[in-house]
């Protein structure tokens, strides 16, 4: 492939292009300002930019396209040629969904109004995008991503667009990557029983069941039913679980919701490739989710897809979420990528960030594993504010200064070559997330608006389980993570679907377990232990599979909490109260620690060079001492003005919500 994905960036003609990109919407900018705006972008230090290519903007009537003849701002070919003339690389995102705060999210209205295209809810109503929160300026019927009529329309759009793009692919042209659809996930109405119950979706659901079970006998055995054909199977429309026997039917629907997303993203990627977009990576951006219905590991494994990223819009109080998502990308994907890293904000968001907040969030993301990003938006446009460059091509100095310094820092240190090297991986148990999704209700339009407490959306099931299914942020895994952070041990995150080759990167893996877990996932993790890894699990020991049928895999080796040797590694079952003791015994040593546990540290290395990140995610200034062995010098790389030097320890002062970066040198 002329452009290949590597752990540091995209490789073109043997050279790595680090993905430090920014979004520019050509059709929203005056054509005669394009050159000046690209000048500004390059002066800030960017050599990669990104743009959506909006379907509805170009296909102005069915089959009629405007590529600049009627509105010169829509001259995509001229924009591509301009990028090439200036040696600017380009990432393109042609949808079909793009959002971009466009009316109708970039879909042509006639497509949305075709009843064959429209998704249906569990109540058999339409699904309007306004069902979940606020998407101004106009509600529209959400398309079903299982609709064949929808794919016929998308095919028409791609037929018109792809030949144009194919003329500009790298290495000869400027386009180095393309995105398949955008934040595909039922238009944010992602709860298990919300949607999609359209006829085409139900057909796809039944295909999924046939694929999963192989034949009807197996399905009837699992469901305790006597269906005569798959066509008779109707999906659950709310949580109606009374006994364990009801679980397979519900869990399969939850799994289907994941499948529809993967199937549609892969199908759209294949449609792009069939139309000539070959030789460059195709990626997808997840909005923010890392549990059902978004299965990042399986999406990453789709043959049609090269790469999965996750978008990030957070304020400074969201540090915990930033760290979690970046650690997850680092654990689950080959090149941790944020295709939309908040740079300014959409106009209907409640909290436009200050430059100081953007600095804290961006550095926090880099600290915890971010390797590639696209600042969304680098250039303002309608319905967006707070970017470094205005739509008139002028700078917003306070924002522009931040990103100019950031690019200078990244390029000075060649940051893309640096690596965190965590030896510990914490795994979310994917099946626990599915169970939580299954045991939920009130997936009705607008229910999110009424200020109802989250517990009202939960269904309490009495299935005779021994261990509670924890909420996110509670339970064994949270206790593990807290212990790691208190001890300044760096770690990655992923989920129990993670592939064997990625598991093998870690010497210690912690997995949250309860009564049930998929047997294949257990076997893969056991194989990791046999090959020399240490698998730590708790608080429960699974004795059921994910559909709550009897199944023992881990349990074959351990009857009670404790440790057992397996092959060249070991398996430890540990309850929450004994986690600290076990961790003390097995955690790898750390090179740096602080007196103040609220401070977070992360070490990034490249050959003999080391960059130490220190974050204060609290709302008060912190003064502490940084401990290490021997004598060291710390040259400021970001956020401090004077070098630190000391034997064994140096003082560290961190303002509230700040990140400092130091080049650590052994004297």
């Amino acid at each position, binding site marked *: 492939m002329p452009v290949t994905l590597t752990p540091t960036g995209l490789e073109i003609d043997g050279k790595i292009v680090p993905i430090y990109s920014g979004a520019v919407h050509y059709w929203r900018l005056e054509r005669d300002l394009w050159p000046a705006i690209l000048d500004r972008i390059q002066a800030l230090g960017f050599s990669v930019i990104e743009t959506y290519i909006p379907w509805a903007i170009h296909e102005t009537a069915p089959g009629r396209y405007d590529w600049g003849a009627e509105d010169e701002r829509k001259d995509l070919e001229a924009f591509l040629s301009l990028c090439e003339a200036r040696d600017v690389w380009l990432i393109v995102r042609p949808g079909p969904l793009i959002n971009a705060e466009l*009316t109708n999210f970039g879909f042509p209205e006639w497509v*949305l*109004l075709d009843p064959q295209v429209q998704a249906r*809810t569990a*109540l*058999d*109503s*339409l*699904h*309007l995008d*306004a*069902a979940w*929160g*606020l998407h*101004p*300026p*106009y*509600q*529209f*019927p959400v398309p079903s991503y299982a609709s064949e009529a929808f794919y016929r329309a998308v095919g028409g759009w791609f037929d018109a667009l792809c030949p144009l793009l194919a003329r500009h692919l790298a290495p000869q042209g400027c386009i180095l990557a393309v995105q398949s659809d955008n934040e595909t996930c039922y238009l944010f109405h992602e709860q298990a029983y919300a949607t999609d119950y359209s006829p085409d979706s139900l057909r796809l659901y039944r295909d999924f069941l046939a694929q999963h079970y192989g034949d009807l006998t197996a399905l009837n055995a699992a469901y305790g039913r006597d269906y005569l054909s798959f066509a008779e199977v109707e999906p659950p429309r709310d949580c109606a679980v009374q006994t364990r026997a009801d679980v397979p039917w519900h869990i399969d629907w939850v799994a289907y919701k994941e499948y529809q997303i993967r199937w549609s993203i892969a199908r759209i990627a294949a449609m792009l490739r069939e139309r000539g977009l070959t030789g460059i990576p195709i990626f997808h951006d997840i909005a923010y989710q890392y549990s059902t219905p978004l299965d990042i590991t399986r999406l990453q494994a789709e043959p049609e897809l090269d790469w999965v990223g996750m978008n990030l819009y957070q304020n400074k109080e969201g540090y915990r979420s930033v760290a979690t998502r970046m650690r997850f990308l680092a654990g689950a994907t080959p090149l941790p990528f944020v295709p939309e890293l908040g740079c*300014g*904000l959409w*106009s*209907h*968001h*409640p*909290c*436009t*960030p*200050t430059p100081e907040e953007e600095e804290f969030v961006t550095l926090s993301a880099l600290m915890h594993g971010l390797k590639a990003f696209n600042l969304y938006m680098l250039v*303002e*446009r*309608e*319905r*967006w*504010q*707070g970017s470094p460059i*205005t*739509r008139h091509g002028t700078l*917003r100095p306070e*924002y522009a200064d931040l990103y100019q310094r950031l690019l200078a820092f990244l390029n000075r240190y060649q940051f893309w070559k640096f690596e965190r090297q965590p030896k510990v991986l914490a795994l979310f148990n994917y099946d626990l997330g599915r169970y939580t999704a299954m045991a939920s*209700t*009130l997936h*009705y*339009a*607008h*229910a*999110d*608006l*009424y*200020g*109802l*407490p989250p*517990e*009202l959306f*939960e269904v*309490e099931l009495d299935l005779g389980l021994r261990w509670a299914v924890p909420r996110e942020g509670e339970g064994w895994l949270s206790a593990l993570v807290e212990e790691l952070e208190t001890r300044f041990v760096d770690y990655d995150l992923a989920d129990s679907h993670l592939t064997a080759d990625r598991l093998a990167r870690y010497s210690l893996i912690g997995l949250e377990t309860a009564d049930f877990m998929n047997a294949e996932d257990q076997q893969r993790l056991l194989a990791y232990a046999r090959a020399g890894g240490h698998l730590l699990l708790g608080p429960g020991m699974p004795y059921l599979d994910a559909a709550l049928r009897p199944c023992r895999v881990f349990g074959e080796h351990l009857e009670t909490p404790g440790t057992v040797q397996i092959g060249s590694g070991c398996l430890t079952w540990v309850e929450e109260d004994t986690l600290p003791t076990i961790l003390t015994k097995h955690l790898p040593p750390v090179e740096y620690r602080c007196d103040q546990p609220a401070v977070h540290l992360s070490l990034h290395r490249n050959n003999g060079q080391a960059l130490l990140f220190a974050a204060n995610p609290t709302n008060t200034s912190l003064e502490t001492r940084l401990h290490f062995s021997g004598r060291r010098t710390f040259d400021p790389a970001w956020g401090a003005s004077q070098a630190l030097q000391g034997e064994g320890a140096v003082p560290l002062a961190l303002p509230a919500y700040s990140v400092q970066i130091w080049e650590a040198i052994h004297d």
Partner: protein
Amino acid sequence: MIDPHWSVVDLDPRTWRNVGRFFDPGQYIRAAQPGEHGLFILHDAGKILRVVDTQSGVRRDFDLPPVADPRALAHSLYARGEWQRVHVINKRHLAQVARQSQAAPRRELTLDAYYQLVYQLLWDESDGYVSVPPHPGHWGGWTYAGLKQFADQLPEEATLALGVFEAGTVAIGLILELCAGTIKRVSTFEALPLNPGEAQLSEAFLERLWTLLAGPFASPAGVLLCSQPIFEQWLTAENKAACLNTARQQGAAFWRLSLREDVLPAFQSLVMPQSIR
């Protein structure tokens, strides 16, 4: 009132940070208020499904009979004095709200009219959602009907502007251009050729702003300048007229109106002081 193809441009980040709190449609619909200690009873046509206390979580200690009279139940629980609000919600009602609001694409409704429909469906007289104390029916004294009546009576093309000042600087500099009662363009003072430091809370700046608006925007119909504390009071004051009138006397608010005679009453009843009536 929101045009489906509105233009929202040239937004200074500070103004947008300060107006962001208004972009939450739920706050205009819901009875539950953030931070409020509430009790929520979810039932399915009488059968109790879940009882949740916002402070202590799921309440399993409640031995409630099936809900026969949701209003009586809410009143009796509220009378205990343990909660600031008691909600008795029929799950089927929430389903019905969703079903009815999404029965059709609703392309005839603007987005705000769509959410108003959701509000009306939720707070119908069916006892599907009972709240004690009840939903007030307005937000800080503002109602959809009042705003719409005002917008509908503006000239065919009109501009409204709001300047809110904090410590001598513009905290909010908002410009709305309306056409036939619909907001077509949203912008901020950044769209105007203002000199640095020119924007002040003063009568002189009010006149300057009026003049500047008339160029790139439709003719101004109303401009209000006030201090941040007055803005906060005005938003929630029961008597908005008295609030602004007092502020003007203290030099903390200035305004200018250019409305047709027949529009004035609607505007006065909505936001303006008694003195201009």
